[in-house]
Structure formats: C-alpha cells, structure tokens
C-alpha cells in the first residue's frame, strides 16, 4: 500500500506505467458507492433511491467531455449507445450476447423516446 498510482499489468506480464492518469472513474465509483464500511450517519440517503445504472450510463453519454478526458470514447462507434438507450437494470453477471439480443427489440421504442430524453440528459 505504498505506490501512489496503480500500475496496470496485462497478461503479457508487461507492466504499463500508470503515469499521471487518474484511476478509472468507473473503478472508483464502483468502490465508493458499492463497497466500504456502512455507517449510519445523521444524514440518511439511500443510494437505492438513485438510479445508479442511469448514472453509470450517463457517465459515458451525458458527460461526454469527462469521459473523453478519462480516455473513454468507444461509445462513438457503438450503434446501441449512440441511440442513447438505457441499459437493462439487472444486477450480477449476465451473458453479454444474450443481453445484446434482448436489447435489439427495445431499440425502436427507445429511439422514439430519445428526443424527450435528450432534454433530460442535457438539463
């Protein structure tokens, strides 16, 4: 627990220098929102009330500049994401191919909602 920046090691065994890039925002959010000790403070906010998956999606869609800064830009090539659809709200591991297959039929309905949502996301 001494190094300042998390190094990244890939399966080649090669250690990529982490440099001064901030840690991946997704990794940080996952930890600070879902883990860590739960202590009942005086201010009670249940994160259950908050649409975390919506937040996570907005992380790369609504906050495009932020996402770009942390090096996430692949959504620009993802037809599903560029439709600004919402992800399925399912906890736990899932079969990615199956999820993809389930998404497709819902695309049209989402596309119809897109304009309305645009205002919401940008607001």
């Amino acid at each position: 627990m001494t190094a300042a920046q998390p190094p990244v090691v890939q399966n080649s065994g090669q250690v990529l220098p982490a440099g001064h890039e901030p840690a991946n925002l997704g990794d940080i959010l996952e930890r600070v929102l879902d883990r860590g000790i739960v202590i009942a403070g005086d201010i009670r906010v249940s994160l259950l009330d908050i649409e975390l998956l919506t937040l996570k999606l907005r992380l790369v869609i609504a906050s495009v500049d932020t996402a770009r800064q942390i090096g996430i830009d692949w959504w620009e090539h993802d037809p599903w994401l560029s439709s600004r659809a919402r992800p399925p709200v399912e906890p736990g591991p899932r079969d990615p191919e199956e999820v993809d297959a389930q998404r497709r039929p819902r695309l049209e309905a989402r596309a119809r909602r897109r304009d309305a949502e645009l205002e919401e996301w940008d607001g």
Partner: protein
Amino acid sequence: MVDVATDLPAATTGAWLHGVVRDADPATLATLATIAGIDGGPVRAVSAAGLVAVVSTAPLDEYGEEPLRRNLEDLVWLERVARAHHAVVEALARRGPVVPARLATVHTDDGRVAGTLAARRAELVAALDRLTGRGEWGVKGFLVPGAATVTAGTAAAGGVGTAYLRRRRAQLTAREERQQLASAAADAVHSALCELAVVGRRHAPQDRRLSGVPAPMVLNGAYLVDVAALPRFKELVGSLGRRHPGLELELTGPWPAYSFVADRPEPALTVGRPG
C-alpha cells in the same frame, strides 16, 4: 446573547466521513492538514475510543439530505466528490491501514462522529488489524474477441444456403464454447489467486459502458494481498494470463481495502440504514 439561546440556528455544516484509522501522536495527526477534503479545504481528525475518524467539513446546503439526493444524480458533482473522497482514502492508505467509509456518510457534528467510533469500536479495530500490511488488488478478466479459432467452413456439398446455415451454426457453437471456456477460465483464475491472497472476492462484472472496454468482462475480482506476497501475486497474474489466452487479465492497485472492511459484505447500494 442568552436571549436567542432558545432559537439557535440549525447547524449549517456537517462532518463527511472519509475513513477511520488508528489513533496516532498529535504530530502525525497534524499532517492530515495536508490532505485536501471534499471542498478542497483540509480534512480534520476526530479522535475517540483509540481511533481517528478523518472527516471533511460539509456545508449542509450542499451535503444535507435533500441536496445530496439531488447532487448524487449529477454526474459532474458525483465525479468530483467521488474522486475527492477516494483521494483522501488513498492518501490515508499510503500511511497505514484505513477503513474507508461508503460515499455520503454525513454526521451533523464531530460529537456524533465520535459516538460512532465508540459504538463501532470493536468492529473497526478488527478491520484495521485485518488490513495491516496488506493491500487490495483488482484483477479483471475480459473475453478476448474471437480467441477460439473457428474451423473454416469446409467446402462441402450443398448449395449456398446450406453452406451459410452450416457456417452460421458453427459460429454460434464457437461463441457458446468461447463463453463457456472464458467462464471456466475466470473460475480457475479466481481460485488460483485466492490461494495466494489472504482473501478474495468476486464482484459483479462491470457493464461495458462502465468498464470502458468493449470486450465483455467475465471476472471482476478483488484480492487482499500481504505486502510480502505481492511479487508472487503479480507473477501469478502474468502466468495465469499466459495459461488462459481466451482471457485478457488486468491488474490494478494497490487500492485502499474497500472490498474487505466488513467481515460479511454489506448489501450493495445501501447507505445510511439506521444501525
């Protein structure tokens, strides 16, 4: 001034809890002032029961219940606060063991924080003991696209349509096989890492939008590793990656031990339930 005593204004600031560390001498505690808290101001130490809670002063017009509910939905706000909170916890982790608090743990004053330290003392001390000399490492495994080679469609008899169907069936079978292999490989990698780690936990794989990686994640593990075992742990990740070419492994860390502060993992996404 006594006249207004019955009509005291409500508190305007609270204490945002970052984490709990062992009590230290005043000189060491004074160095906390070099760590920036959620609003950029220095963090403070609240000492009680042989423990120190590290807190930021949190104006309640921004960090009170209603504003928090609203602000947590604001990505820009959430990113700033999450990074600031994490930066404090990380700075503490560089000095020694720390029990990180979940985001948005706010008390109305320092006295209430001290009360929490006293009430949860045994659990916090046990967690600090468990984390001493150890760090959390993350190992993610991504499915390598098209890793399993599909045998080229044989130029068999039959029309174009038959050939297409045969090829399509082979593709689907190959994909299923690849996923089963990746899933088995993820299990094997996790088991092997757990043998070297003090303890390991598998978290739900991150959504592709969150991971920022187009390849599906099949392993999202966290491992508590003794500092002495770290070189062997890193070596093991490398050799496991070579042994399972269908998985791309990514090692991150050291992280503050977010995943190992409770004996029993708390239900995810729940904060501030009365204890």
